[in-house]
């Protein structure tokens, strides 16, 4: 006959401790480590668009960001953006400037590509296509998800860099050229790496691809 051995009090405490440790390890290594776990990834093929010729797909680590471009508002800026997208110029470009909860910026094709990222110069690079004139619209509302063309301190210096705002920014109205708005996947952009107090992100996230829908 086998006698039933009761777990002592100290063994019970150790067992509970091990369970808690296991849960903590699982949470921190699997759930918290995976920043994309709860982010919805939109498949553009599942969505019907009225104007597919103006839909572009920005693909990053956590999924797709679907953007509608506004050629009626900023024809030259949209033309420039489409040209660079069709050339595949934005693929592997860094999100070099990210302000937590406010703005992400990418598109430095000279100093911000994965293969030649230059921390000293990123943000000042050009596309090689030349600068274009600002197309400002006082009435255009810069609300969350708006995509605009970045520029230097001076107007009429837009080139390839673009930004997407993560909160409403009325100060941007009439200041920057709007090119479109994020229709789906804004939450994907909230996973882009930022470092508090750093105005250029060290070891930044990159654009996987930036393509036209059609």
């Amino acid at each position, binding site marked *: 006959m086998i006698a039933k051995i009761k777990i002592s009090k100290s063994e019970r405490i150790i067992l509970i401790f091990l369970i808690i440790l296991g849960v903590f390890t699982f949470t921190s290594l699997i759930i918290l480590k995976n920043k994309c776990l709860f982010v919805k990834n939109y498949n553009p093929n599942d969505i019907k668009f009225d104007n597919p010729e103006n839909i572009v797909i920005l693909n990053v680590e956590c999924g797709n960001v679907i953007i509608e471009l506004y050629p009626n508002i900023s024809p030259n800026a949209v033309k420039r953006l489409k040209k660079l997208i069709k050339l595949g110029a934005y693929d592997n470009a860094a999100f070099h400037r990210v*302000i937590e909860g*406010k*703005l992400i910026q990418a598109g430095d094709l000279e100093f911000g590509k994965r293969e030649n990222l230059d*921390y*000293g110069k990123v943000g000042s690079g050009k596309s090689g296509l030349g600068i274009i004139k600002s197309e400002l619209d*006082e009435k255009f509302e810069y609300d969350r998800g708006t995509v605009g063309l970045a520029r230097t*301190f001076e107007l009429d210096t837009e080139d390839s860099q673009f930004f997407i705002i993560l909160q409403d*920014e*009325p*100060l941007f109205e*009439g*200041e920057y050229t709007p090119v479109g708005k994020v229709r789906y996947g804004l939450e994907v952009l909230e996973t882009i790496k930022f*470092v508090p*107090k*750093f*105005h*250029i992100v*060290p070891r930044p996230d990159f654009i996987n691809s930036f393509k036209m829908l059609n």
Partner: protein
Amino acid sequence: MILFRAILFFFIFITPLKANIIYNLIKIPNLEVYNVDAKNGLRYLYAIKPFRLGLNVEKNINCFNPGKKILDKQYKIIKKNLDRYSLNFLKKINLRYIVLCENLSITEINTAGIPNNKTRTLILDIKFNQNHFERAIHHELFHIINDNYKELFNENIWKNLNKRNFGYSKCSTCSENWNLELLNNQSGFFTEYAKSTASEDMAEVFSHLMFYKNKVYSNDPIIEKKILFIKKNILKIDNTFKF
């Protein structure tokens, strides 16, 4: 090498003020939005901490964050005065941002305002001489107009309006007399301060025109000519402008 890189990273990238959206627009740190809904498109910002500025390495412009009570009170006065300028006129003179702070100084000399037409900004000291505060707002705004239309407000033509034996100081702060009280001695100037430079003189004429509206009256023939000069050229910028 790794340590060197880490140190380099630290110094290159840790510049918190540059991560600020307002700083990126007008290159002034420590500001917050006060009001961006003005009908004429002006955006009012205020200092939340003291700031120092300067075009050169030497940062010679200083201003401090105002208290909430005085800020609210002075903002109403400033807005009332600036609301007289239309969106169209402000676009033409390239003014968009009004920065409100207190105890504004340049090279340790207190000043009512500092215009910067490149950043389309006018910094205003909300605690400046309260007797002349409202008029000073228009005075400082004129400097923005002047900076954008130098050819219209030609200083040589202006200087010829004065008496032959008169000469301005070399700069606006070179004179010892900065009195802003109205003169009444047929000297050709509204105030003692107007005698400092041609541009300050023009700003004084403009501010008197704006502040006293049509009540500004002078039987001084030089001032009469100066008023005509200012009115004529302002109307060249915007023929709908109302003094």
